[in-house]
């Protein structure tokens, strides 16, 4: 037959490695599930607990919203101030981490490693530590959120800095600008919209984070979550969840509108 002109048909690539990969993942998940005693039957056996719980949430204790409004405002303040301080602190760090600003290699790499280490520490953990240092107050939450914000803002911003257009920088160097002028007129105008957008994005994250920081004693609405859960007052818990939800969505919407205008 003429179809054999081009020699034998190439055999299908082996799918063994793919299957092995799937089996490997399955085994890892299975071992992990056994390790943490994640027996699906426990869940279904106790699922009536869940329905009881959901039942006791209704109707939500709407009056609790008025009681907790000062704490909710505290939460927003914490997020706002935390984001602001984080923003200020992240400005020098993001320039240090960008490869195209400072040509001192070891300094850039060291800052990046430092930033990566900072980013691994979860917000709630920072809050727990600062609550121990500064006492149970919103101040602890603000400090924790500031440090947490540095990780996000600096990381996103230095990547934006590395992606800027080199043209203006080269022309400025050509006419003899010094480093500070170079940054102020060559780099900043290019990254400013991105930077503001990242700050707003961080603010959105921080509102969510600030709402739960109170669970470890760092002020804000989380204190009331702790209290309501401690008293098994699930109708209050639901009221809090819905309240937080509305605030988060509102702030997200405002922030999204501003960000759309910026970029």
């Amino acid at each position: 037959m003429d179809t054999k002109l081009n020699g034998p048909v190439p055999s299908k690539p082996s799918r063994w490695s793919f299957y092995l990969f799937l089996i490997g993942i399955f085994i890892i998940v299975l071992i992990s599930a056994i390790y943490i005693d994640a027996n699906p039957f426990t869940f279904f056996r106790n699922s009536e607990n869940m329905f009881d719980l959901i039942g006791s949430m209704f109707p939500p204790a709407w009056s609790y919203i008025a009681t907790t409004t000062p704490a909710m405002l505290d939460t927003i303040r914490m997020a706002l101030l935390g984001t602001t301080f984080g923003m200020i602190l992240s400005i020098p760090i993001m320039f240090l981490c960008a490869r195209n600003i400072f040509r001192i290699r070891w300094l850039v790499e060291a800052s990046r490693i430092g930033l990566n280490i900072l980013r691994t520490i979860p917000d709630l953990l920072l809050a727990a530590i600062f609550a121990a240092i500064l006492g149970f107050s919103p101040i602890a939450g603000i400090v924790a959120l500031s440090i947490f914000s540095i990780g996000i803002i600096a990381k996103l911003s230095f990547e934006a800095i590395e992606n800027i257009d080199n043209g203006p920088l080269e022309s400025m160097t050509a006419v003899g600008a010094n480093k500070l002028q170079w940054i102020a007129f060559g780099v900043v105008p290019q990254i400013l919209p991105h930077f503001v957008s990242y700050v707003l994005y961080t603010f959105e994250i921080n509102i969510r984070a600030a709402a739960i920081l109170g669970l470890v004693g760092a002020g804000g609405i989380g204190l009331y979550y702790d209290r309501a859960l401690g008293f098994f007052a699930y109708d209050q818990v639901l009221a809090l969840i819905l309240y937080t939800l509305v605030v988060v969505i509102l702030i997200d919407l405002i922030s999204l509108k501003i960000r759309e205008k910026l970029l």
Partner: protein
Amino acid sequence: MNQSDPLKKARRKRRWKFTTLFIILIALYIWAFSGIEFRGIQETAWPVTKNIIHGFISPDLSFIYSPDGEDLIRGLLETLAIAVVGIMLSIIFAIPIGLWAAKNLSSTSLISQSGKGILSFFRTMPDIILALLFIKVVGPGAYAGMLALGIGAIGMLGKLYAEEVEAMDEGPVESIAAVGGNKLQQLAFGVIPQVLPGFISATLYRFEINMRSAATLGLIGAGGIGTPLIFAIQGRSWDRVGIIIIGIVIVVLIVDLISSALRKRIV
């Protein structure tokens, strides 16, 4: 003059905009600062800070491994296990919901919109609150933490999946439809092969977040390394806090490195 008039107008308008924005910001900050009552830093702040720093410099190495009972390695393994099983649970739910929410797969926008609604509902639930609820169902421990992470991640993962599907090339699906493939075949041979790398990348990204969340779930009693950590913080044994945080940082860094290397290879 006539030429520069609109320019001037635009400039004036811009200046107005900036002034209003500036005033709003100032008002916002006055409101924020006046609301925070600053009672001075408590006297214990400095000694505690010193103790914490000391704890990090000389961490409690005996906590790394002890043959019986709680230790760092077991706690970290449990955290890893919570994140792994949690991500599996999210994948199982997020794939169908993500496909459901993708605009280009549904015939009417009503279908995809309802899917998107479900996803944003899941996205607004904080992991920690979910954990508190699941603790009531299955009792305190890693299982509750795993369920919280698993359910909590559906929203984000489903959204990322849906975006991936919406960005795909319609060509292969159309050609399969043209040669008579049914909906299921279109999905299996037209959609899935295209979006698989994106799905894996999104999943790995979420896994990195899961690792961090899993480390904090223990702070409220949902298992993992956070449980011994909160006890150590409450008991002011800072050398133990030091070793636990060092452990968390190392494990999260390793997971991030592996995950980002994998993501670079895939995409």
